[in-house]
């Protein structure tokens, strides 16, 4: 097949700024995007820098963006991203500085992982042999253990785009893996650490990390699990917890959201509640009035919603 590839180029020692070069190469029908890049480097332009190793989606070296979406290029078939022979665009991962062409500096990524204390810290007397844990206590860790630390989720994280201090999806998924490990003796301290600013409560639920993870880790799911663990551990003095509790209370009592109350309840500090005043005034001046009138009321059948809450609250599958 003929593969048309537009490649982001950058050489810190060169004369040109960031730019794109276009290549056309002939490949086997079942070729991966990495095959195209290696063919370009070996046969067309030896100055192209590409990082790769295992070519089997195990080592995590070759994450980069194809048509704007982070992926492992070694298991991304050309036929999937260019089914009709279209030109594809390959760029380095986002949210990390580019060293050269498609190679990024992963130091930022590793520093985030290191910051969550990514090793088990047991407490109490050491067993004579290995630590034994029941199979069911490890089942919920399987996904996070499958992370190959490729950085794809960090590349496309929408929070990191605006706030480089965010712990990020890879580190927070790893954080869950250790906080939930029955062999670890520091769960409470871990949850306190991960609840701090730039931690679990800064995730937006945007699903980017779920979408791009090449190993099905779904980091966002584990960030949300961390939130449940934090709340269960009594770490409730956070706007995220207040928001979640207020929303649940509103739906339980009336069947639907009391938006104004939710906004007020979510802020813990009075000074923060005052930040709602300008938008509240603008809303009133524009004549926005809920379709149901100024006061929140119960929806028809709300008693069944309340009953379902009572039957299932506290139950977590």
């Amino acid at each position, binding site marked *: 097949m003929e593969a048309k590839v537009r490649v982001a180029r950058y050489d810190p020692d060169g004369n040109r700024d960031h730019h794109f070069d276009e290549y056309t190469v002939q490949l086997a029908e079942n070729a991966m995007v990495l095959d195209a890049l290696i063919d370009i480097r070996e046969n067309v332009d030896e100055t192209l820098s590409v990082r790769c190793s295992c070519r089997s989606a195990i080592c995590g070296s070759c994450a980069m963006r194809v048509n704007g979406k982070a992926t492992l290029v070694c298991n991304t078939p050309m036929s999937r991203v260019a089914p009709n022979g279209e030109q594809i665009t390959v760029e380095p991962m986002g949210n990390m500085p580019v060293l050269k062409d498609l190679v990024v500096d992963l130091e930022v990524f590793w520093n985030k992982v290191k910051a969550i204390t990514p090793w088990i810290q047991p407490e109490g007397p050491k067993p004579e042999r290995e630590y034994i844990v029941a199979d069911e206590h490890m089942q919920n860790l399987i996904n996070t253990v499958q992370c190959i630390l490729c950085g794809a989720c960090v590349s496309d994280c929408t929070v990191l785009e605006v706030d480089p201090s965010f712990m990020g999806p890879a580190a927070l998924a790893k954080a869950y893996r250790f906080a939930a490990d029955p062999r670890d003796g520091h769960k409470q301290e871990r949850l306190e650490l991960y609840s701090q600013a730039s931690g679990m409560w800064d995730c937006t*639920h945007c699903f980017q990390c779920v979408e791009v993870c090449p190993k099905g880790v779904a980091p966002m799911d584990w960030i949300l699990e961390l*939130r449940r663990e934090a709340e269960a551990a009594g770490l409730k003095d956070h706007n995220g917890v207040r928001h*979640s509790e207020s929303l649940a209370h509103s739906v339980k009592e009336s069947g639907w959201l009391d938006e104004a109350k939710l906004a007020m309840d979510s802020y813990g500090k009075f000074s923060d509640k005052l930040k709602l005043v300008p938008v509240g005034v603008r*809303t009133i001046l*524009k004549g926005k009035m809920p379709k149901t009138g100024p006061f929140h009321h119960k929806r028809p059948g709300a008693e069944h919603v309340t009953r379902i809450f009572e039957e*299932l609250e506290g139950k977590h599958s």
Partner: protein
Amino acid sequence: MKYAFYPGCVAKGGAPELYDSTLAVAAAIGLELVELTGAACTGAGVLSERNPELADTLNARTLAMAEKEGLPLMNICSTCHGVFSQANARLKKDPEYRARVNQHLAPEGLQYSGTTEVKHMLWVLMEDVGPEKLKSLVTNPLGDLKAAPFYGCYIVRPSWVLGYDIKPERKHYLEDLIAILGAEPVEYQGATKCCGFPILTMNRTNSLTMTGTHVSEATEKGADCMVTPCPLCHLNLDGGQVEAAGVVKKHLALPVLHLPQMVGLALGIPRDKLGLRKNLVDTGPVLEKVLGVNR
């Protein structure tokens, strides 16, 4: 075309203009809507975060109400759409789980057997009404209006839950619709990113930076307005635009239309029925460009 209609909380609360414009557009196109007045909030992803089975049960209840009517479920919120789609996928896939959930619906005489099709109004317009009929209904082409699409996360990700693998064209429905209505879609990076609304109370600066970045990028690319199928995104993009401008330190004044407001303009629906005066950022410039009048 008849649908069980799920308006969601915001269209009945903080964004009444979305509810009004939806009904006006539905009437103009001939969509018959049976509103599920007793349906609960989807939980907007927050309830799923607290208690997945509880959220799925409440959403199964709504899916069962639509099933009882024998109708597909039409919603008008990207977030509600995503939450319903995810719950529906889990309930359809696992009969044992569905049976467990159904135990909680039985006292109300409801049962969900997994047949309800969930469709956002955007999908209804593009798949059920179809581009040809829509084109034929456009009496007031939007001329040289440049509109920046803003999808909302839950209607684009996870793509496999939303059927993008089967219908890849869903990736560009909003751009396609903008073109059908006679306007020009603006290409910019923010279209499928997060508006920031979910963390507005958790990290206001990050939230408003996201909003400010997308609005300013769309403005720099020449957009006259944004259009979104998500009222939660609208709360930040429109409602929070003044504050976002302060955070990103830029002048921002980009009107943000709800999806049916833009469709309604092209269909020649009187602007008062579309609630365009209720958007917090002045929609006057859009009206001036489309209709040649400000108010």
